[in-house]
């Protein structure tokens, strides 16, 4: 696969994966702001998934 296609496909999932890993480990280090990073990361995954689940046929 050409480099440009690779990042076109994997940029968004990679960004979410890195953010999630950072969040899960950050929350181990402290409370408050450290926890919030994990909430943000898992919140984004959940929101993107929900948006996909709620995508319905357009009524024409």
């Amino acid at each position: 696969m050409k480099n440009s296609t690779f990042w076109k496909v994997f940029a968004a999932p990679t960004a979410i994966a890195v953010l999630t890993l950072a969040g899960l480990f950050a929350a181990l280090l402290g409370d408050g702001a450290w926890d919030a990073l994990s909430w943000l990361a898992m919140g984004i995954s959940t929101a993107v998934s929900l948006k996909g689940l709620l995508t319905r046929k357009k009524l024409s």
Partner: protein
Amino acid sequence: MKSQTIRRWSAIHTWTSLICTLFLLMLALTGLPLIFHHQIDHLLGNAPQFKAMPADAPRLNLDQLIKAAEAHRPGEAMQYFAWEEDEPNGVMAIMAATPGTEPNSSHTFMLDARTGEALEMPSANGGFMMVMLRLHVDMYAGLPGKLLLAFMGLMFVLAIVSGIVLYAPFMRRLPFATVRPEKSTRIRWLDLHNLIGAVTLSWALVVGLTGVINACADLLITSWRNDSLAAMIAPYRDAPPLTQRAQAADLLKLAETAAPGMQADFIAFPGTLLSSEHHYAVFMKGASQLTSHLLTPVLIDASNLKLTAVVERPWYMDALGLSQPLHFGDYGGLPMQILWAALDVLTILVLGSGLYLWWVRRRVKA
């Protein structure tokens, strides 16, 4: 990617998924209530109710607590005392017929640290949540059950990795998060499988891998006993069996002196899995959020209450310590628990849609 390469990864994805999906569905379903076990215990009235007393009410010492526990379960042996951060007035006690009795046959209850009154914890010894826990941990099959689930966890990890590889050819011509409900039910669920799988995969990998490590806990503990512990207690190999435990009132003070800056997390009494025949093992946790998951055992001779050793912590015991919060999702407050449950449900959707997609494709091929 060559079409032959795709076919090969596709076969890996299909078979690793098929092998583990039913087990993973069971784990995801039983794990869901376990995320909220604290809240559920409180709601059902299974959490011990402590009497209101002044905050500075004096605490019983360890000897008095042991006496209170033994009076509550006459004829049984002490196995463990454990402290919980959110229950500062209580000490959790675990007792059984003998110190070496396996954990599922033990009895767990709470002692009021100020009065010594015993408070039952029904959900720690049976009932719905215990059924969920046993299914989740070993399916009532002991070590073979745990190892089978560990193997299923590894299959799950392989399924995720092969899924990442296959994501590329599927998504080459589609923008991220494409869902096409207008095409067909199969295409809609294929898109959702790819989308939800892609955004939940790092969480699923973390929970999957830490689950595998937790499932191997028995093996890691055996290895720790053979490596670190055995060296420390070698001088006791030919010692006569312990007949009388020394007064234990100062046990914690002694452990805190041996491991400065640390705090007792639990005590393993002599003869249990986590101590020796001749020792108390006081497991000390670090003071920071991170090091509170890493436990350092302090071995104290039970016959004379003298320090024997501070046992070293091999890397795999630290890995086990960190695998627990990362698997349970209990270290980031209620928002983390809720999101943990949301990702658990999303994983169920990925597993279910995967099964559905395999089934529809199979019928087309046939």
